[in-house]
């Protein structure tokens, strides 16, 4: 079974991430990637993961692209999900102090800002 971008986004909106698990080598990857990145098999099972994990790195943007003017400053972070698969997205934090590396974040949706993350301890809005 293959996942469309539309289905992938629908799950993000429920705070979940669709992954593929390779039947041949068990590799896990985002379900937007159609061959296994490790062994190139396309025998892939769909796995649903809770969109929770830890901050790998991030930035706070002060000079935004169009459409983000109203949010600046805001964050963008790379996150390692609990499955070990990485994803990234918009996060509404105003200062680097509010988002320590390795702190826990989760996906809360997908909208005009893209993939939207939230800091779990509630220290950010």
């Amino acid at each position, binding site marked *: 079974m293959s996942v469309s*971008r539309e289905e992938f986004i629908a799950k993000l909106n429920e705070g979940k991430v669709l992954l593929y698990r390779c039947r041949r080598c068990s590799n896990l990857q985002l379900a*937007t990637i159609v061959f296994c990145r490790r062994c190139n098999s396309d025998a892939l099972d769909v796995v649903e993961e809770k969109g929770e994990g830890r901050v*790998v*790195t*991030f*930035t*706070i*943007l*002060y*000079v*935004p*692209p*169009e*459409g*983000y*003017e109203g*949010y600046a*400053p*805001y964050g*963008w*972070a*790379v*996150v390692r999900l609990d499955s070990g698969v*990485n*994803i*990234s*997205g*918009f996060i509404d934090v105003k200062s*680097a102090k509010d988002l320590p*590396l390795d702190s826990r974040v989760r996906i809360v949706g997908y909208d005009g*800002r*893209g*993939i*939207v993350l939230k800091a779990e301890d509630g220290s950010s809005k």
Partner: protein
Amino acid sequence: MNRVCVIGAGSTKYGRLKEGIVELAVNASRDAIKSAGIEARDVQYAFISNVFGVADRQVHLAPVIMSDLGLMNVPGLTVESACGSGSIAFREAYANVAAGFYDVVLVVGVEKVTHTGTARSTTLFSYCSDFFYEGGSGVSFPGLFASMARAYMNRYGATEEDLAMVAVKNHEHGLLNPKAHIRKRITVGDVLESPPVASPLKLLDCCPFSDGASAVILASEEYAKSHGLEYVQVIGSGRGASPATLQDREDITAIPSTRAAAQQAFKQAGIEPKDVDFAEVHDCFTIAEIVDVEDLGFFPKGKGAEAVKQGVTRLGGDLPINPSGGLKSKGHPIGATGVGQVAEVYEQLLGRAGERQVKGAEIALTHNFGATGASCAVHIFRRV
């Protein structure tokens, strides 16, 4: 494979320019043709490097540029690989000449974006990322490199001051380059006090948005010799690719495409990093130069910042990096940049670089990538 060389180069000034995209490309191409000592009609094919022609209302650039060069019967092709377009177009030209399809090929890179303004340019550039995960989730290119910088600083203990030293050095070099976009001496303090763009990067950690064009002429060495032309040899050419997104990098503090391209180029050239006399590398942000000089094999991982602190990479140091001023000071008209690096090497190896001349340089390397290094090309050149 035929041996390939560069027989001519030309560049416009880089900066906020009044000329349009076609005029810039034509001017740089004319200067390259004239410097080569050939007739325009000797050019048999052209690669045009450009990303945002649409922003200046001109795509399908090859026939327009060639017609204005009086070469309406000479075919060409536009190459787009984000900020790496120039070196990648050069690589395609190299491959065509090496394969014997053509004897003389023009590569011209051009960009015209400054008229669109900061917000529009930031948006356009973000289309060079994997837009679904990156640009479309609010991150700009300064933001992507800032994310690399944070990871790098956290792992290797580099500081904002260390990053700032790269900008200070490249601005020093750019002061000596009459065609550079930002010619201004700056201090570490200036960098640290400049406004934040994407933390931890500040205005003076970033290259500017620039307009400009650069062109070079490649020929088979046989052609150059039989026509008595001056030239520099291309002795190594490599290409590499990385995952398009930062999230998919095994190590966010390194760029795999640089390593792959460099390995191929060094192997072909039969030399090692220590044999290189100077390099033009892709310093779109201060952190990028630090990562580049490590990935190219010039310094061990985690030691790139040390090299700039100790002055090794300054003009007059053991391994000058970006004597032109680099993207930081010379400017970054993205389609032109990779071609401009080759133009710099051509001038340097022929001893024509004026005040910024790297004395006695015999072997030089160019390194240029697209986006966060998703596409990369490395070339190595030798004086004959």
